[in-house]
């Protein structure tokens, strides 16, 4: 094994007005030629700081206290990166070491064509003519499987989807065939199916044209580590707590933090639950007879902004003809990729958005045509938990004011009664009473979400729509919040719609799942049925796309391309353009959307029932 990068005793700190804070504490590791090394840890563990230290891209307030980073460059010279001037470092950046960043949406210059952005790095490091560089650029775009490269090269980043942009980033990183590519959470901002496409592409490239290139893969997703990496380093609070071959670390974690990290994954918690046989009485009994929420043929369409004078006749078809029932004490999961309409559906149900058509019955009361004023009473019974706990709390109100407001608005209690009541609730969500006087910015992400949950609970609702309540949180915090929600569900006797893009969270938490695609529900079934015998091709692809830590990696069902625009969805079955095995009728768009019951309680879109 040839060692290409050796990090030894690296310490990095951040300087702020409050003193300096150490981000990396004396870490050492090495990367061998051609290997994929994964760097895992939760936010704040120092993964990104490590990569930026290697790249020499630390922000101005960060500095390296001590250590060495030795690189064997392309000419086989050993260089200590930390001793280089910025100009000298520029010869290495993009040439010997390149980087793929997390946010494909903001990582490319919006005012330069993607072609120019790739050509730039080629011309910067290779002494070749512009025409030759352009040719290389087109080849690169082909390599990362961007269709129609000559045309795409002339486009700007905003004209490309997130997945496409990340392909462009990969081609920039590949351009000079570097010794090392640092990939910092390259797929975290993307949907699972797109993530699966990209990871597959990355491995394909790794095994063909750049087989000698090493990859330092930074991620919080243990599933990806299991699938891709040869070796793994686990970081915690700026220190390396465990290092070893992937299989070894996962099967037999030495450090308690690693063990914890793995065990807080929903897939493990699920297993744990099965083992302890709690599964049967895990939830409060779902009352089969009492339907709390009933939706019939619900549509939500947004007009496309067309400007000042012209009324638009195009609409974004966000929610299309959705009918479903939620029984008392049931948790219905809504799962789908971004743009599938799951959040819009959630908001339409509690009428934060006025549905375009269709009926909503809440406790047998048709609320679909209720005005905002009429909704005020109903809203006591229907609440929402939002995804971004920070953005959804007013930064200038302390927690007490935030929580007491709805009680006073609805005139439920006197002020001092309300304060006592809120103290109970804040205790229920696992926060100390003192938090009431503090402001949102003083809490961590997990604590803020607890506040968000408390806010939803103060009115003692019967029904809650939780919109991605744990997606912004780290795995271990996610597990805590999910446990809390599970507990509260029982104590407060809640019925819930739980929206998430994360299938393992859904599997852990819900009783019934509806899979959404382009505004339609394509499959709806009890959790165990959906996960064990999915019927719709999209559900299958979605399930197989999730990288799993446990179990063997089954052959992935990859679906091609991006989600079509909801302004002009495909005719007939909306999934037909990406379906891995479409039938003839289905390809022609001759089959209308509509659910058919294949087993009791298991409904699948008719197109896929006919095709298979």
């Amino acid at each position: 094994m040839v060692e290409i990068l050796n990090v030894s005793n690296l310490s990095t700190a951040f300087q702020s007005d409050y003193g300096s804070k150490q981000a990396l504490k004396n870490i050492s590791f090495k990367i061998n030629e051609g290997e994929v090394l994964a760097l895992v840890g939760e936010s704040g563990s120092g993964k990104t700081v490590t990569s930026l230290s290697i790249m020499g891209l630390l922000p101005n307030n960060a500095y390296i206290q001590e250590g060495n980073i030795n690189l064997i460059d392309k000419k086989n010279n050993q260089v200590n990166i930390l001793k280089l001037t910025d100009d000298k470092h520029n010869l290495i950046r993009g040439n010997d070491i390149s980087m793929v960043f997390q946010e494909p949406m903001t990582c490319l210059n919006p005012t330069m064509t993607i072609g120019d952005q790739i050509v730039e790095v080629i011309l910067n490091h290779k002494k070749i003519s512009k025409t030759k560089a352009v040719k290389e650029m087109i080849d690169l775009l082909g390599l990362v499987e961007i269709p129609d490269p000559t045309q795409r090269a002339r486009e700007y980043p905003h004209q490309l989807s997130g997945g496409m942009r990340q392909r462009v980033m990969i081609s920039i990183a590949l351009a000079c065939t570097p010794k090392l590519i640092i990939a910092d959470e390259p797929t975290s901002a993307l949907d699972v199916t797109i993530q699966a496409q990209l990871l597959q592409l990355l491995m394909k490239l790794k095994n063909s044209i750049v087989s000698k290139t090493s990859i330092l893969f930074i991620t919080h997703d243990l599933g990806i580590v299991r699938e891709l990496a040869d070796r793994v380093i686990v970081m915690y609070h700026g220190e390396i707590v465990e290092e070893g071959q992937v299989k070894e670390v996962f099967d037999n974690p030495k450090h308690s933090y690693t063990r914890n990290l793995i065990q807080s994954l929903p897939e493990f918690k699920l297993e744990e639950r099965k083992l302890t046989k709690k599964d049967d009485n895990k939830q409060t009994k779902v009352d089969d007879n009492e339907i709390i929420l009933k939706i019939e043929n619900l549509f939500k369409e947004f007009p496309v902004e067309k400007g000042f004078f012209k009324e638009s006749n195009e609409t974004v078809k966000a929610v299309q003809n959705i009918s479903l029932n939620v029984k008392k004490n049931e948790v219905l999961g809504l799962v789908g990729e971004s743009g599938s309409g799951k959040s819009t559906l959630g908001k339409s149900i509690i009428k934060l958005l006025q549905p375009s058509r269709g009926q909503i019955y809440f406790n047998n009361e048709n609320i679909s045509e209720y005005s905002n004023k009429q909704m005020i009473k109903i809203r006591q019974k229907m609440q929402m938990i939002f995804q971004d706990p920070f953005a959804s709390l007013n930064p200038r109100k302390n927690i007490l004011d935030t929580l007491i407001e709805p009680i006073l608005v609805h005139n439920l209690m006197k002020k001092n009664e309300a304060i006592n009541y809120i103290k109970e609730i804040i205790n229920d969500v696992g926060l100390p009473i003192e938090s009431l006087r503090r402001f949102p910015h003083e809490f961590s992400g997990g604590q803020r979400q607890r506040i968000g949950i408390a806010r939803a609970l103060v009115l003692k609702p019967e029904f809650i729509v939780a919109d991605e309540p744990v997606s912004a949180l780290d795995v271990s915090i996610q597990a805590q919040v999910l446990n809390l929600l599970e507990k509260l569900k029982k104590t407060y006797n809640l019925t819930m719609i739980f929206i998430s893009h994360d299938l393992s969270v859904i599997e852990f938490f819900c009783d019934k799942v509806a899979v959404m695609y382009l505004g339609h529900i394509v499959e709806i079934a009890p959790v165990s049925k959906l996960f064990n015998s999915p019927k719709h091709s999209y559900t299958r692809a979605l399930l197989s796309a999730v990288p799993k830590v446990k179990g063997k990696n089954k052959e992935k069902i990859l679906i091609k391309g991006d989600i079509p625009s909801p302004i002009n969805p495909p005719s007939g079955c909306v999934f037909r353009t990406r379906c891995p095995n479409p039938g003839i009728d289905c390809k022609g768009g001759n089959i209308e959307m509509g659910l058919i019951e294949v087993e009791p309680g298991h409904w699948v879109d008719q197109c896929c029932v006919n095709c298979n």
Partner: protein
Amino acid sequence: MNFFIKKLLIVIPTLYIAWTVVFVTLNIIPGDPVNLMLGGRPASDEVRENVRKNLGLDKPVFERYTSFLINATKGDLGKSYLTRQPVTTMIKENMMPTIELSIGGLIFGVFFGVFFGIFAGTKPNSMRDTFSMIIALCGISLPSFWIGMMLIYIFGTTLGWVPIVGEGFVSLILPSITVGLFFAGGMARLTRSSLVDVLNQDYIRTARSKGISKYRIVLRHSLRNAMIPPVTLLGIQFGLLITGAVITEEVFARPGLGQLLLQAILAKDIPLVQALVVYMTAVYIFLNLIVDFTYGIIDPRIRLERNRG
């Protein structure tokens, strides 16, 4: 292009409102144009009545208002009370010096504004940042008549580097600086803050990860992205070119629209004031149209929105 047609359609009501406001104000404020014309000389009622009739001032206010409008649509903006010349001719005669001054001020202002903006923004919170921003603050806060006089005193009288009066390019330097300094101040501050913002963006980090030199990062990757706010400010500040011209032309005793406007207001020469205001409004709108157009050149995302709209 739909976008620009819409913008052009807005010009007409804007001009109409500007016109009306000027008409109403000039008719409300006290003072009789006839008296001003006679310059305080005694005159019989008959003469006064005659002058009044000649100027069309005997007609009721409303009729004067509508007849102006009707004539204006035919392209006739009326005749000056004072000189009896068509106002359009007077504007044409005085236009060139003001245009020269404005362009000079604009070039000076944009150049120095962007220069100091980059100088400061590429190294925020440094000595050179503070230095540049103090200069910018001076540019904004020092009144232009004072700057004009100081420039005349230092460079004209004491050092004798540039002529104070006269024609041609050299005589344009000091007035241009006077007009441009105010521009430069605002431009510098906004370019700085916008550049600081852009330099913290993810795509700049991407550019750095490619190993590109810092000059290229500023010039090729940052500047264009940072230009939207300064260009917007430029559009807003075009109005200042006009007020700037009024003061600067007075200080440097240059002929031009500013001088003309000042005299017209003092003489209550309603048709001339109206024509000047309408003319300046039109120029202002036109320049802002160019600014809108520039947005599209700067940022392809704005181009896209327009093509959709």
